[in-house]
């Protein structure tokens, strides 16, 4: 489910996509909703990158950039679609749209 790195031309030069999981969870260890989302992905067997907002202060800036300044946990990026505090139903639907389940 993890794509291989690849490069392609764009008007802005060569763009390379890292071989990262297309799902990124921004959250904290002590947040119930974050744990709910992580365990949901675990059970589905979907690889995801977990970014702990407490351990990576720069990550909060990244989340703010994506959400228009709204830093909340969990924020989940599913193949480029950013979901702020999604319900599990919304997350499942986003994963299905992305073809990940």
């Amino acid at each position, binding site marked *: *489910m*993890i*794509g*291989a790195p690849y490069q392609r031309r764009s008007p*802005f030069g060569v*763009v390379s*996509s*890292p071989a*990262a*999981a*297309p799902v990124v969870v921004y959250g904290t*260890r*002590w*947040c*119930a*909703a974050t*744990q*709910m989302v*992580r*365990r*949901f*992905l*675990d059970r589905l*067997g*979907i*690889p*995801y*990158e*977990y970014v702990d907002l407490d351990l990576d202060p720069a990550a909060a*800036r*990244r989340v*703010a*950039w*994506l*959400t*228009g*300044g*709204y830093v909340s946990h969990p924020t989940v*990026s*599913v*193949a*480029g*679609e*950013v*979901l*702020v505090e999604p319900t599990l*139903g*919304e997350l499942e*639907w*986003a994963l299905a*749209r*992305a*073809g*990940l389940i």
Partner: protein
Amino acid sequence: MPGQRYARRLNDLEQRFMALAESIPDSPEKEAISVLHGMIQEVWRSFSGSAPTGRAPSELTLEDIASLYKTAPEMRGEAICEPLPVGTPAPDFTLRDPNNEPVTLSDFRGRPVVLVFYPLDWSPTCSDQLSLYQAEISEFERFGAQILGISVDSIYCHGAWAAVRGLRFPLLADFEPKGEVARLYKVYREPDGFSERALYVVDPEGIIRYAHVSPRLDMIPDIYELYQVLSEITGLPAPAPTTVA
């Protein structure tokens, strides 16, 4: 190729957008771009949400009631209690469940018990914490572990709350004398009239093997840490996260 199953182009664009953030100096223009991006995501989310339910907007559903906590007053506060030490016997107690049946800790000897002390039914954080444990119930069953929720709410309040949130494990009423068991476990917050958010894991012999008081009321313990404790007690593997670097 499996990696191309998802919307690669959207993912690429998102990563490029992310990479651009550092090269744009903080400014109102940068903020406007960020706000626009957030708006696009939210609009997309609203379009791609669930199908219309067909119900009238004014009709109250169980889901609405279960979500009341999201607009309820916040519950905040630093921890003020120190839990009982690990390695000591867990004090025995009997409390009533929502069916008014007595539940006694020592009746669970031979299997691990997770004691979940939480402040109040219907309140923020508590709702999510107990729903998490309900969602994880099959993992707890795999460990042979029994979860017991304990708060100062009455059996009737527990019954209604459990029904609305779909909680199937026992919620015990530490109602009268109020907070007696929470006091026994050193997690009663006298100034507030409810307990800390605290977790004890009691092993099959009745010994406390894990004691955790959340540093703040709106924090819940890490479930992966809890699984690690249950794994050490039972010798069964803990579920592994599917995280990648």
